[in-house]
């Protein structure tokens, strides 16, 4: 819908497509990252009975902006032993990988970057670019800590992709679509039509499915935590062992680029979880626009609900980060291969049987 609007405004497909492509970055991800970094510091501070940043603005809400200004002025250090071209490309590759996922995420019924029929499959595919970028950063830094961090990160992302995909397959089996927009539209109405509560079709199967859907949600949420390298799965950047993993050697805006990619990724996985299980952009309680008969209000409300759901899951990620200790490498792999994958498989089979009923 927004694409048609820009196409009418500028009369050129190229301009419209470029604006459509840049819209999530400038309207959404940058403000979100600024807010989320501040939120992370506040959440961590209050969990540890501190106040966190308090000086810049009301309760320190401008702190991140001040930090960005500081990072912009920092010297861009490239050590002589670094592999210069790869060292420079790596932050971009990581960010491209995490931003590409936003192409298939429906923010509201009026805005989806590209209404891909492959949707969630595409999101899984482009996360491969992030892995390549992280490995590139680790290798080009020419630093043992960086390389170790990159290896751990890549191994972790690849392993935890399997339970994620198994849960996605479960949902695809029930709904018969990979398109996140269609998936969100199917879960319209009220919150009892969400996939976590068995989906929109009423019947015995719906109620049988509820416990297994909850198991599926827990599995995909745990593995999405591992995919964005958050605690309890943050061994790739374990400060006490590896300095800070693959971005140890980076400074200034290149470091900020990794940070931005990390926060963009956090929202992307939360958005996928919200779209798969929690109705995507659909309101849980009906729309004000329908109630008072203003049609153009509905997409805006949907944007609000989508952001709210995404932000809630991002908040839970932060909550877990400051609550749980870090897993060891062997525990990490055991959790994935011995617990999550078998449970996800059994879950897949059970939901398949229920769907056949």
């Amino acid at each position, binding site marked *: 819908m927004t694409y048609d609007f820009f196409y009418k405004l500028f009369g050129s*497909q*190229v301009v419209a497509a470029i604006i459509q492509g840049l819209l999530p970055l400038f309207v959404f991800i940058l403000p979100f990252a600024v807010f989320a970094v501040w939120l992370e510091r506040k959440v961590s501070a209050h969990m540890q009975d501190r106040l966190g940043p308090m000086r810049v603005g009301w309760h320190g809400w401008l702190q991140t902006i001040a930090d960005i200004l500081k990072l912009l002025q920092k010297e861009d250090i490239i050590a002589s032993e670094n*592999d210069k071209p*790869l060292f420079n490309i790596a932050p971009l590759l990581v960010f491209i990988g995490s931003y590409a996922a936003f192409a298939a995420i429906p923010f509201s019924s009026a805005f989806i970057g590209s209404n*891909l*029929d*492959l949707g969630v*499959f*595409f999101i*899984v*595919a*482009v*996360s*491969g*670019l992030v*892995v*390549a970028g992280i*490995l*590139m950063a*680790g*290798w080009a830094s020419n630093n043992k800590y960086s*390389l170790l961090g990159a*290896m751990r990160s*890549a191994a972790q992302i*690849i392993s935890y*992709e399997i339970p994620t995909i198994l849960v996605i397959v479960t949902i695809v089996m029930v709904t018969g679509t*990979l398109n996140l927009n269609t998936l969100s539209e199917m879960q319209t109405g009220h919150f009892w039509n969400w996939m976590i509560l068995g989906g929109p079709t009423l019947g015995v199967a719906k109620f049988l499915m509820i416990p297994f859907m909850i198991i599926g949600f827990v599995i995909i949420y745990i593995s999405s935590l591992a995919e964005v390298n958050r605690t309890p799965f943050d061994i790739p950047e374990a400060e006490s062992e590896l300095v800070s993993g693959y971005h140890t050697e980076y400074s200034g805006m290149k470091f900020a680029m990794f940070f931005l990619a990390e926060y963009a990724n956090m929202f992307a996985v939360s958005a996928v979880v919200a779209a798969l299980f929690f109705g995507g952009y659909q309101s849980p309680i009906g729309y004000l626009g329908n109630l008072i008969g203003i049609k153009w209000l509905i997409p805006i409300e949907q944007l609000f609900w989508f952001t709210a759901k995404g932000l809630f899951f991002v908040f839970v990620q932060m909550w877990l980060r400051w609550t749980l200790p870090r897993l060891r490498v062997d525990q990490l792999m055991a959790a994935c291969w011995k617990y999550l994958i078998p449970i996800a498989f059994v879950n897949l089979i059970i939901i398949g049987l229920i769907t056949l009923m």
Partner: protein
Amino acid sequence: MTIYDLIFYLFAAITVISAFFVVTTRNIVYSAYYLLFTFFGVAGIYVLLGADFIAVVQLVVYVGGILILLLFGVMLTNRITNVQIKTGTIKIAPAAIGVALFAGILGAALLKTNWKTINSEIPISTTHTLGLLLIQQYAVVFELLGILLLIALIGAASMARK
């Protein structure tokens, strides 16, 4: 020259140029990363041809799978990254004959084939049709391939245990 042509030549250039550098560069890690751009370019051409599912599979299998495996191998192998790979030419005459023959076959195939042309239209998504074909017409082949991959996985796991 429409936008379509422009994008096609862009992706074709990415594919061909990066493929050229994969072969000629002396650093094995650089080769691996040029390969990333080759795979990316091929995926782009698949999208232009309307084969969206194949394009994403290309990304999953080659970028997310094979390339990462390659990088792991290269980076974990001790001192392989410092090895200077020889990219010069040896035995030009046999190589030239081989290349000329292969080019001849390819050229003949290109010129002699009775290419099927269809009017370009907005491509429809192939996922649904592809899924139905795999599960109905080619079900046996599909299942056999699955078993083959499973055997390979079990073999790898049992070898890793030793």
